[in-house]
């Protein structure tokens, strides 16, 4: 017998996690759209119990609340929408802010992405035991914190949704530009994140930022093939062979961006970033890029979420739109920024602008500094190559 609220929720939550963990083992369940049915029933029964408990408590304090009017019948509530809500609730739970970021990522990939612990470990280049522990600890934390299994509403929904989007984008980014290891990109992680995003877009179709994130990921993923050179080296955006961009993903990305735009409200951070990515996707040649629009979009990003990294990106766009000197002026204001001290892209960008201004010697020093700051092997090689190019230019100049 379930006697208190917390216990009921723990039961529902454990049942769901258990049910979902069976998924990757037994394949996609027999009845699509109803694979959570058993656990949804559990949840409905728990809801009733909870309501009865509440009713009793209200009776005790003498308040007259008409709970009975909206009583639940467990069999009628279990339809596709409820299953969708359960799935959504589970996404919100796995991405709960009470969990550390890496725990959210691991739990989301395990429970929602259907990845095995081994696959997650391989994806993030950490030992299997680390991921296993992370997941066990995450579940314990959820239980101990009495995290409620629900789809949050109101202001809480905004905050919780932000965490869900962050987790999905973290997974995507780890695949898109690996922070460590031998490979510059790991497409499988990008695919997992994209798929989670697409599922979320169907579960929460009225959330503009969900479509914004999907648009951003689709457009960025469209460049995956072009981002890696023949020997695994990174190829930067403006040097990429645009014929290798995936038109299907670009089309999907632009459609998702439109979907975000059709919903009410100002553009959010993901939609803005997707709009920037779309400027590149629409340009058939680097010269055709609408840089002034990109600068304007970065202005909007900087308003919503001011940060030195955004300023750095904005400086790059300014350099393209209004000349390297204008870009360098902005970058120079960021050099003293403490949070960018170890950020390899600051010297990399500065080096690039200096080189365009034919200040090869300074440019070389910046590329060398950038190379010493990155932990990604292939990226370091690229930066070292750029430094060498500057040296060659110095000699000939």
């Amino acid at each position, binding site marked *: 017998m379930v006697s208190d609220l917390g216990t009921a929720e723990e039961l529902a939550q454990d049942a769901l996690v258990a049910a979902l963990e069976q998924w990757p083992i037994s394949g996609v369940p027999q009845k*699509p759209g109803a694979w959570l049915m058993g656990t949804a029933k559990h949840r409905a029964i728990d809801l009733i119990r909870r309501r009865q408990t509440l009713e009793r408590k209200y009776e005790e304090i003498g308040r007259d609340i008409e709970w009975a009017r909206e009583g639940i019948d467990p069999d009628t509530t279990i339809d596709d929408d409820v299953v969708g809500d359960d799935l959504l609730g589970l996404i919100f739970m796995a991405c709960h802010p009470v969990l550390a970021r890496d725990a959210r990522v691991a739990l989301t990939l395990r429970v929602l992405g259907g990845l095995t612990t081994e696959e997650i470990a391989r994806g993030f280049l950490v030992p299997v035991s680390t991921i296993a522990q992370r997941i066990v600890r995450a579940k314990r934390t959820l239980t101990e914190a009495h995290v409620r299994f629900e789809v949050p509403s109101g202001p809480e929904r905004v905050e919780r949704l932000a965490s869900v989007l962050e987790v999905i984008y973290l997974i995507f980014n780890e695949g898109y530009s690996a922070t460590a290891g031998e*490979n510059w990109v790991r497409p499988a992680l990008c695919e997992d994140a994209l798929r989670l995003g697409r*599922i979320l877009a169907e579960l929460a179709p009225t959330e503009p930022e969900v479509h914004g994130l999907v648009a951003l990921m689709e457009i960025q993923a469209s460049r995956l*093939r072009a981002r890696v050179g*023949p020997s695994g080296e990174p190829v930067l955006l403006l040097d990429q062979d645009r014929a290798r961009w995936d038109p299907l993903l670009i089309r999907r990305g632009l459609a998702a961006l439109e979907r975000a735009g059709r919903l009410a409200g100002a553009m959010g951070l993901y939609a803005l970033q997707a709009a920037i990515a779309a400027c590149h996707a629409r340009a058939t040649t680097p010269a055709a890029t609408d840089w002034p629009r990109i600068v304007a979009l970065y202005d909007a990003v900087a308003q919503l979420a001011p940060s030195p990294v955004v300023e750095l990106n904005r400086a790059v766009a300014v350099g393209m739109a209004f000349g390297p000197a204008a870009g360098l002026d902005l970058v120079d204001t960021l050099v003293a920024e403490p949070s960018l001290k170890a950020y390899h892209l600051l010297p990399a960008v500065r080096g690039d602008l200096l080189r365009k201004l034919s200040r090869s010697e300074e440019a070389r020093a910046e590329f060398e500094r950038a190379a010493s700051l990155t932990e990604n092997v292939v990226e370091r090689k690229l930066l070292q190559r750029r430094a060498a190019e500057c040296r060659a230019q110095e000699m000939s100049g």
Partner: protein
Amino acid sequence: MRVLVLAKEDHQSEAAKPPTPEIMAEFQKFNEELVKAGVVLGDGRLYPSSQAKRLRFDGKKRTVIDGPFAETKELVAGYWLWQVRSIDEALEWLKRAPFDAGTYEIRQVFEFEGI
């Protein structure tokens, strides 16, 4: 991974008349489930081969062959482009399709060479 699902529907491939509303509704329901699961990237149905052309290459020579084509069992009537984690996942989904005839072929799309 991406897979291309080729519908070789046999008798249906060459039928000029569209399927019944009931069959369409069932199919759409299935397709919707696939979309909700983030599986479908794209799809399309093809006209009968009576409207098709083939071009055969033999050295410098090009020969145009007009439809309809005889080997109906091998004719593709439609396709899906799916995003799945494995061929097995694609098979699991396909097994649940509301079809009662025809052969459906799952082929992995070659991507990310050199990554």
